[in-house]
């Protein structure tokens, strides 16, 4: 019982703080919109894949991008917690480290999914307005996509938390994650189809867990996919599971 209350406390704190910091909410919406409108709109005038306009094509990629940036970046707040000593208050409480980790994951995932939900609303508006033809946002496709995003987010938040738990300076954290986030994003097929890739690029893309999330969501939203939906989902779940396990371990070993 006490563990659940503690987890709830941590989740409550992360969510409250996120909602109070408006700049975080706003910037998390502006960035993906710029991608969709400028890159998507600009290239979309000339490029399309399998009859799908480029702007529509990258929409799943932008959803994942938002999840990716926001989730991994969430780890920086644990570095801050250490700096302002809030971490001490949590670590000295009668809670298991695993519960602290779970509380943080739930907090980070909620932040991320709130941002993603706003993007879904934007997607629906664009779809109805005819800006993104070929996009099929049905209750089914939205639910499946959310499942993909949820699981991927849990894995990605774990990555951020693992790095954050081992680091002491926020600047150092930011440096490291930019080396991590950009390859994960560019090598995920968020911006291009992953069929007929050059030989050197294919293994890199197939080794990236984010690829399968993009592939699954794109498959269910516009019928373009390389792998079977169930295969994609299984791989994404495996990725999340492994990251959660490593994260639990990292939290147990975390030093102040």
């Amino acid at each position: 019982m006490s563990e659940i209350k503690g987890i709830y406390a941590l989740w409550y704190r992360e969510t409250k703080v996120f909602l109070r910091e408006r700049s975080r909410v706003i910037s998390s919406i502006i960035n993906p919109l710029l991608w969709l409108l400028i890159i998507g709109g600009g290239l979309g005038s000339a490029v399309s894949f399998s009859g799908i306009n480029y702007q529509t094509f990258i929409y799943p990629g932008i959803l994942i991008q938002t999840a990716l940036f926001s989730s991994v970046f969430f780890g920086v707040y644990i570095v801050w917690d250490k700096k302002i000593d809030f971490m001490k208050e949590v670590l000295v409480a009668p809670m298991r480290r695993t519960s602290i980790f779970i509380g943080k994951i739930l907090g980070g995932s909620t932040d991320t999914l709130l941002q993603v939900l706003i993007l879904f609303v934007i997607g629906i508006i664009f779809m109805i307005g005819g800006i993104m033809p070929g996009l099929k946002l049905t209750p089914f496709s939205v639910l499946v996509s959310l499942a993909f995003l949820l699981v991927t987010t849990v894995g990605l938040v774990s990555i951020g938390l693992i790095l954050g738990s081992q680091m002491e300076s926020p600047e150092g954290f930011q440096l490291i994650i930019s080396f991590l986030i950009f390859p994960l994003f560019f090598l995920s097929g968020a911006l291009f189809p992953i069929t007929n890739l050059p030989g050197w690029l294919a293994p890199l893309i197939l080794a990236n867990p984010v690829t399968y999330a993009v592939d699954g969501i794109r498959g269910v939203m516009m019928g373009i996919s390389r792998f079977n939906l169930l295969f994609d989902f299984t791989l994404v779940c495996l990725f999340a599971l492994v990251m959660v396990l490593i994260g639990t371990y990292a939290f147990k070993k975390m030093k102040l």
Partner: protein
Amino acid sequence: MNIIEIKNLTKKFEKMTAVDNLNLEIKEGEIFGLLGPNGAGKTTTLLMLVTLKPPTSGTATINGFDIVKQPDKVRKSIGIVFQDPSSDEILTGYENLKLHGWLYDMPDELREDRIKEVLKLVDLTDRKNDRVKKYSGGMRRRLELARGLMHHPKILFLDEPTLGLDPQSRDHIWKYIENLAKEKNMTIIITTHYMDEADKLCDRLAIIDKGKIVVLGSPKQLKNDLGGDIIRLKAQTLDLDALKKLPYVKEINPCDGEVCLTLENANIHLQEILQTVGTIDSVEIRSPTLDDVFLHYTGRAIREDTPEGSWAEKAMNASEKK
């Protein structure tokens, strides 16, 4: 019963030994003080006892649980007020306290009652719905205290609890803590720079220097051990050799540019001493204080060591960083 038993507790950092083979027993219901200059190892000792830092060697049992082997159980028995601010500034004071209640699994009703009680104690009831960001350094400190006192742990650790507080709030808080100790048979371990505070409050105290216990005892006993009274002399030139020849003068120490003599029955001997030293500017007779005890055992005054940066200053730095 010993509620805390520290056995050969040692913490080594790369170059220095912060806590050196510490052995100490603290009884249930005791208010115990750890005194010492900065870097003496007080905070490091506390952090090891509350399971936030692993010892290099040795261990301690708290409420019967081993701090190395059973940290989870130790954490269920303790509470701590840290020296540095550790509240979330984006949350309000009230929300920080509520969070604490949840983390310590307090029943809802009790939690709300206690929040009211401690907010009143630290005089923050009116500001409870303001974000901590808007609090002054002193207010943050008080919130921190309120939070630590909220769940009435069996053993409460206080690291420099009243640093930077005005005398009035200090008195309030100490009365509350003394009551807790009495009514709930709570054990309290404090570190402090305020010698008068330690003198009034602590049942026993240990003076720590360079990671070792220099002396241990009740404030009264420690002061008595110095033997008698203190005469403080100020003069341009003092005939120290002549002073040393007086059989009843036990000790001669320089203090703050003046000279302090320790002796019994100072009022009887004053006449002779004044004749011996020659012309003086001023003289003062008093009973020994813990400051004198500290000076006697460590060779320096505790006031020479101010804590690194005031608490308020740290709070401000932290908020700027964020």
